């Protein structure tokens, strides 16, 4: 991958709503070239998707999120991958990472209520063969996610408007 594609990726990671015309100007190339690059980056599985980052707290929709530490006995041949797959296939699982350190897999799940999340852990997650223990941490408040601060502070007052 060349410099220009790297630059394109950095720009998209920050703001995927930039138009092809803007991206082309910023990367000093044509819109056609941008379209080709985006397509091939998608084909190669480098660009996986584009999503909006939403602060659900500001909506009427109830959502509970939890981070679960999972310990696993790895399987012969497949290591952790097989069990991780059995975990991440669930719709409720938003993220799933293999970890170094005190436990093996981080699972982040979203549900409508605390009960829903608790039931998922006790009935689905901990009953998977190979899962030896879980510890559930509910997320109380989000300050920042993917580089975006949730509660934007006020603009500074009395700033020079021309200088």
């Amino acid at each position, binding site marked *: 991958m060349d410099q220009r594609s790297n*630059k394109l990726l*950095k*720009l998209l990671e920050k*703001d995927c709503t*930039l*138009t092809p015309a*803007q991206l082309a*100007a*910023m*990367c*000093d190339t044509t819109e056609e070239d941008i379209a080709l690059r985006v397509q091939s980056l998608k084909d190669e599985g480098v660009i996986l998707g584009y999503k909006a980052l939403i602060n659900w707290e500001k909506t009427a929709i109830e959502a509970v999120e939890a981070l679960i530490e999972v310990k696993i006995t790895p399987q012969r041949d497949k290591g952790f991958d097989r069990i991780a797959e059995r975990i991440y296939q669930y719709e409720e699982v938003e993220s799933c990472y293999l970890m170094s350190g005190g436990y093996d897999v981080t699972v982040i799940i979203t549900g409508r209520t605390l009960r829903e999340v608790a039931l998922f852990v006790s009935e689905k997650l901990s009953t998977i063969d190979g899962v030896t223990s879980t510890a559930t941490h509910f997320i109380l408040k989000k300050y920042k996610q993917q580089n975006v601060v949730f509660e934007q502070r006020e603009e500074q007052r009395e700033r*020079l*408007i*021309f*200088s």
Partner: protein
Amino acid sequence: MIDYNSVISQRVQDIKPSGIRKFFDILETMTDAISLGVGEPDFQTPWHIRDAGIYSLEKGFTKYTSNAGMTDVRREICNYLSRRFDLHYDMNSQVLVTVGGSEAIDLAIRCITNPGDEILIPEPSFVCYGPIASLASGVPVPIRLVADNEFRLSPEQLEAAITPRTKALVLPYPSNPTGGIMEREDLEKLVPILKQHGIIVLSDEIYAELTYGQHHVSMANIPEMYDQTIVVNGMSKCYSMTGWRLGYVCGPGELIAQMTKIHQYAIMSAPTTSQYAAVEALKNGDEDIEAMKEEYDGRRRYLVNGLRKLGLSCFEPKGAFYVFPSIQSTGLSSEEFCERLLVEQKVACIAGNAFGESGEGFVRMCYAASMQNLEEALRRIGLFLDSLKK
């Protein structure tokens, strides 16, 4: 009743208020205006730098520092200048920490100016040099730069402006407002003339880090000119630290000692909290500079491209964060253009003649703004230009 006109010194009365402020009042009343009029970065000061300032407050470091600035700051300034620009200064005798580049410019001009001394000021340029020279009893002599060579200073223009009273040349590159730069060979062409007439160079390098596609070269990088050049720089633009008010001036020890004397009487010492933050910035801020510069570079290309598509001619600005398109094709003066654009489409930019008469026919737009704002500004400028054609 006191007649204040007889109280206020004639020299001060003769100074015109900055043209930059012209549409301040109109803009203040608007809520949905987009301002491309500011001359400062739109980023927050990086957190690790703010944190260093906060930590110094927690520790209670709230006293004056030595007049020249803390040893650590001067050391880090020297390390930084040598690392980034191959400029070498002795931290004990050749560096003074100031209240922004602004104070540094003031000190440098005051330090060298006798009554009637002429200070050459290439224009269009930042607004402070002329008034500061006048206040120091000098005579500002504008040199009218032209768009044809991207507002560089040519040896012919320099030669033509020199008289027996010429004391110094201000070299304000990368340029606010044009975005123009002087490359090494441009500087070298001036050297024989500057040497012959013994002219001191005041090099305002506040935008040095914001040079795109190449590396900034200082007049002080040219060995014969090192002893004859005063370099002004600061934290404002490259670290997004405008409100911290911290800058510095470097140059021959004899001159720095005299500037330190003025600074000692007029200022005492630069803000202490800001000096602690500056140590952190200068030591560990190279990556912040690169990241912000990359952002600006993308916006720069986008705005230049967009303006050209709208039919405004615009040379490629290789420095700072301004574009300086020509608006001559509209038949409007710079001020008419800016006022109507603001009133009719609510986009604020600054008339080129605010930076000197030779800026007439141009406007300054700052691209230290979000992509959304730049996009919307371009859309509105397009509407404005269309409305002129009817």
